[in-house]
């Protein structure tokens, strides 16, 4: 049996004139966790839909567990699990009834489905809510039920499409914990997320997707290396003076606007030019320039790049923040 659980070659997908995927290559090994990281509309869900046999690719080939997702779609469906972006559970049924129904549709005997439902309700902390309709569940509970529904029969590959988008921090932690347990059991996962922190926390490898194409791939550390060593972070006293700061810093390095601080101060990240000064020299150059231009600075310092910086560097856009 091949070790490659996902093999995507030059896959494109168009919807009318809109090219959602412009030529994606991707592989995933058994037992690994791949984080597919990208902003809204980058093509993450389209790619997952193709791999889960919900959509055929326009061109290119995609194989899951060695099977073609178009020709062998039925066989693929028997061996994967999909937890979508919008919790796909039946609101008019109770949590237990949802699991029982999905279990029977996975062709478990009713008795086995019932036993499995009990176990999963226990494991996902839904026992108290088991006999309430899913429409009364909180967002986090619905996601947990949705995740449980994907695990009735142990899939060989599980797709998690933005499993925590829109969840509060506590619910997000619960989902992360559940995902880590699955990883601990050797589950192969393909996870999509808009959140850098999520990809960093859960995935072995990260593929950054933007406008329908994979623009970088590697471990979190490898991606951080791409920014090139350390960066200088500048925080202004407030959100004015940004133009002044940009003028002051032009030519020192690659300047990108970062996400503002929680209390509303503007933030800049200065990455070293390939042949320009780096490290302490870069810090000194930045400080001098800011001082020369009388920019009111709250904080300036040297630090290792985060995935946020990588994202900025690669896409030129600001990724979504994990909501606090």
């Amino acid at each position, binding site marked *: 049996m091949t070790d490659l659980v996902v093999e995507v070659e030059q896959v494109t997908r168009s*919807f009318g004139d809109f090219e959602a995927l412009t030529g994606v290559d991707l592989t995933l090994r058994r037992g690994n966790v791949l984080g597919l990281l990208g902003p809204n509309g980058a093509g993450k869900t389209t790619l997952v839909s193709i791999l*889960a*046999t*919900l*959509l*055929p690719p326009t061109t290119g080939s995609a194989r899951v567990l060695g099977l073609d997702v*178009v020709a062998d779609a*039925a066989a693929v*469906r*028997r061996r*994967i699990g*999909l937890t*979508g972006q*919008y*919790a*796909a*559970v*039946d*609101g*008019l*049924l109770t949590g237990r*009834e949802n699991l029982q*129904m*999905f*279990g*029977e*549709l*996975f*062709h*478990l*005997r009713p008795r*086995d*489905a019932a*036993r*499995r439902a009990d*176990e999963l309700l226990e494991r996902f902390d839904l026992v108290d809510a088991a006999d309430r*309709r899913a429409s009364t569940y909180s967002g986090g509970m619905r996601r947990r039920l949705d995740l449980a*529904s994907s695990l*009735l*029969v*142990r899939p060989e590959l599980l797709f998690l499409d933005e499993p925590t988008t829109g969840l509060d921090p506590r619910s997000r932690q619960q989902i992360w914990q559940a995902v880590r347990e699955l990883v*601990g*059991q*050797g589950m192969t996962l393909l996870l999509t997320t808009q959140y850098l922190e999520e990809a960093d926390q859960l995935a072995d490898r990260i593929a950054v997707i933007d406008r329908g194409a994979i623009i970088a791939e590697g471990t979190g550390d490898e991606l951080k290396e791409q920014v090139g060593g350390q960066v200088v972070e500048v925080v202004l006293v407030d959100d004015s003076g940004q133009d002044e700061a940009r003028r002051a810093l032009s030519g020192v390095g690659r300047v990108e606007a970062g996400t503002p601080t929680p209390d509303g101060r503007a933030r800049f990240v200065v990455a070293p030019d390939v042949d320009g000064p780096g490290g302490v020299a870069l810090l000194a150059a930045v400080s001098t320039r800011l001082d020369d231009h009388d920019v009111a600075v709250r904080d300036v310092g040297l630090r290792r790049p985060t995935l946020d910086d990588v994202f900025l560097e690669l896409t030129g856009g600001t990724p979504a923040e994990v909501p606090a």
Partner: protein
Amino acid sequence: MTTTTPPPTETTEQQPWTPVPVDSSGISRAWRDAVVVTRRNLRHFMRKPRLLVFSTIQPVMFVLLFAYVFAGTVGQDLPDGLDYLSYLLPGIFVQSTMFRTTQTAVGLAEDLEKGVVDRFRSMPMTRSAVLLGRTLADLVRGMAVIVLMVLVGYLIGFRFTEGPVAAIGSMLVVGLFGFGLSWAFVLVGLKVPGAEAAQSAGFVFVFPLVFVSSVFVPLETLPSGLAAFAAISPITLAADSARALAIGSGPWLPPTLGTLAWTVALLAVFVPLSVRAYTAPPE
């Protein structure tokens, strides 16, 4: 069919118990999947109180309104010895069944707007089970409404006259015809986006068909052009069949065979079209 019984083995912590799917042949699996979806749809029906109340009150209201409002005028045109309530009730079986089939399109369109059908699509279940589960649930619901109308009919003086087998036959022939027709509305629900649009599309089609038929009035009372249309309408066949089996208003065999032939024809046309429309990959 091979049914392997996997021993539920408890293994290590790393690999928790996971049940093994029952291996079975295509047909029995398709049927079981459809039954699971049917059960879900019937639960939905029971848990939408407004839908439950209105879909049962409406046919009962029709029985009472027509029986008392039209008994005078239409009753005079009926053959001797036939009162309007006896004439009307089998017709109302057909009318309520026809109106109910438009709900098939609505229910399906609503399903498609929800994420749960996306999950169904990503699962190894028989894909057409979503459609069969919908039409079977609507058949069960339609039969329940017919039984309710019979109960109300009995309270106000209706009586079956041809024996219990014929009585059950009169209800079944209408139910089966409705099952066939509901597959046409499956296609409507798949093709017309949105539940409300699906409902409107259904009524535009169903209303004239029901009224231009022998459901409420004998054909002789219709203007000649409409009567000619009504005479060849399958709705007239279904109403005549149900009426003949219920109260012996005429020969039962020809309209019953005609109704069943229409049912088979509807299924032969719309089941393949609907299944193809549902299982074909988008675009």
